[in-house]
């Protein structure tokens, strides 16, 4: 049995470790119904093979770093945490990072992950220069914007359904410190929040934590965290701080599954209230935050997915275009708040267009929140999805465990081109995940 980070759904699938890059061609060409798996941080069923799940964690070697243009070449299973460990002390930061550092480069490309700087710098895929892709025949193709470019753009955000990313080259950005200058903007309702987020479009990083249990006049009240890489003079006021601090190993691991009732409306809404007030007190004050706590606050608590108990949880992440964002997001938030199901991890941010055929990002606002798995949650989400579809939005495949084919097809207009490419490269006969099967990709 194998599951994603949300622990729902679970499937039977043979699991095979890919030990060496040289084993990839043979394995791929001789098997049907397989999918690559990185570190299993996608929430739902994207990294579960229909018949075989090929774990790529041992493809973990870095290949080269070119100082001249700061480009790094690594195997697909290299973890983001390892890149941070090696390169922050040398003054480089990845161009885009998701909310956890425990993901692989292959997983980041296959999901074309977005960070808090998507509105400015695009997704991870926008910074990938070249990949080496093992396609259905076992052949290894070099793909880039100029070479095998159709396959390149299908693979960015392609959820592993075009082949296995054996290697990738992308650029790092030079940084002079490992600190972030953070400013908190406090908003009192959704209208304010959307407005304020839009106004931070020039900032390098921005993201809103949204109190998804408050209703009425304070529906959509938020704390917006705006960040810039600090300069050495910014941190001069912190006498002993290292300019380029490494990360500390994670401190705690949740040893047991919490019982299902632990996160209920009362506890979560009390948490949200406290959190909002604490943030409001810091309003407009500027603080210096360690890169690890700024980008990866959840990583300090390993296996926090156990918070939600054995039944697991779902994340719902959608993006909706600017035009009707206010109306749509308020009715969505109102439904969530009314149901009392949504949890304390709700974020809102701005996106621009994505790079790949199936890339999730589209211009607009993206809302993401967690909900524990329960019988009535599925119906609630189906209703929310109707609002997303009507607004011309879509759901993020890396987080998805349950959307319907209809919702999916309505949101991804380049799906036909993607399918066609799968046919012509033979990928449709070899690469197949539970997600792909469920959504008919």
């Amino acid at each position: 049995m194998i599951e994603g980070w949300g622990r729902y759904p679970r499937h039977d699938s043979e699991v095979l470790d890919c030990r060496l890059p040289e084993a990839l061609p043979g394995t791929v060409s001789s098997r049907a119904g397989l999918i690559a798996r990185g570190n299993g941080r996608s929430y739902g069923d994207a990294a579960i093979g229909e018949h075989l799940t090929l774990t790529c964690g041992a493809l973990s070697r870095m290949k080269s770093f070119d100082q001249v243009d700061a480009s790094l070449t690594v195997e697909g299973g290299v973890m983001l945490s390892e890149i941070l460990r090696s390169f922050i002390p040398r003054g480089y930061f990845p161009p885009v990072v998701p909310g956890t550092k425990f993901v692989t480069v292959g997983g980041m490309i296959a999901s074309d992950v977005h960070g808090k700087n998507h509105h400015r710098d695009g997704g991870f895929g926008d910074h990938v220069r070249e990949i080496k892709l093992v396609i259905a025949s076992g052949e290894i193709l070099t793909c880039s914007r100029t070479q095998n470019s159709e396959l390149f753009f299908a693979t960015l955000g392609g959820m592993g359904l075009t082949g296995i990313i054996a290697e990738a080259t992308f650029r790092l950005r030079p940084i002079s410190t490992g600190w972030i200058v953070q400013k908190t903007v406090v908003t009192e309702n959704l209208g304010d929040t959307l407005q304020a987020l839009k106004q931070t479009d020039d900032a390098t990083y921005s993201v809103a934590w949204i109190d998804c249990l408050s209703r009425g006049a304070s529906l959509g009240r938020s704390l917006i965290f705006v960040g810039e890489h600090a300069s050495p003079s910014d941190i001069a006021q912190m006498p002993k701080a290292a300019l380029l601090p490494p990360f500390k190993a994670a401190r705690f691991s949740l040893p047991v599954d919490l019982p299902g009732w632990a996160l209920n409306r009362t506890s979560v809404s009390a948490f949200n209230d406290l959190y909002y007030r604490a943030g409001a007190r810091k309003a407009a004050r500027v603080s210096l935050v360690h890169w690890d706590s700024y980008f990866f606050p959840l990583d300090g608590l390993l296996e926090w997915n156990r918070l939600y108990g054995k039944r697991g949880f779902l994340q719902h992440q959608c993006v909706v275009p600017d035009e009707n964002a206010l109306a749509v997001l308020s009715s969505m938030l109102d439904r969530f708040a009314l149901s009392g199901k949504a949890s304390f991890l709700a974020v809102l941010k701005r996106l621009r267009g994505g790079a790949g055929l199936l890339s999730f990002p589209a211009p607009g606002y993206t809302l993401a929140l967690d909900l524990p798995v329960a019988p009535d949650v599925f119906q609630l989400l189906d209703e929310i999805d109707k609002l997303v579809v009507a607004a011309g939005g879509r759901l993020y495949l890396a987080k998805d465990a349950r959307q319907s084919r209809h919702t999916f097809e309505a949101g991804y207009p380049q799906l036909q081109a993607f399918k066609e490419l799968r046919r012509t490269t033979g990928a449709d006969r070899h690469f197949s995940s539970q997600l792909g099967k469920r959504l008919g990709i």
Partner: protein
Amino acid sequence: MKAIGKTLLLIGATSDIGRATALVYAEAGWDIHLVGRRRELVQREADDIVTRTAAAVTAHELDILDTGRFEEFLSIVSPLPDTAICVVGELGEQARAERELEHAAMVMRTNFEGPALMLGLLASRFAARGSGTIVGISSVAGDRGRGSNYVYGAAKAGLTAFLSGLRNRLSTAGVRVLTIKPGFVRTRMTDGMKLPPMLTAEPAEVAQRIFAVADGSKGGDVVYVRRIWYPLMAIIRGIPEPIFKRLRL
């Protein structure tokens, strides 16, 4: 990276422990010679370490069973390293080793003959120079023969005795000789086995312990990676043979 002008020779570079160990030394600013059986695989590890740490790393191909090449090989590794670590090992299959002489011989030669001869040659060169550290990776399996893996255990016991003799011979020659016994380690070798968490180390933990003992501030000649092995193995060694022979361990 701070270059400190020290060199490590690491034999068995494509093993999980070897890779982790080389990385710890590279991060501390050492230059590294990596040695393994297949050139492409050693090169893959060398590229990895260079990319991660910007250390100076060279890749060499040598089979530990190819003892006839050892002298020639060492003559091209220059400068003579400050520390030499051999992590080569092969668990083999006990049942198969009971039936097939060839398999048993391979296990014995890989765990004893090859590493012992190689480290012996290095030790003599270090002694001639008057300095150097030799690290052999032996095993708790060499502390007492057990029915379930005595071919491997015997070879490791041989290595332990060899290292002990080497240490004895060179104690006044400026050469340190260390015996590391990792206990269970989560590696390719133990993949699929059920391992007791209390007794099981990660490759990185083994690597850090090796570095701390061989080139850091920690002392010791014979080192179990996890301390719990000291009392445990003392007990296992102390069980009288008439009783031990009936135990299934």
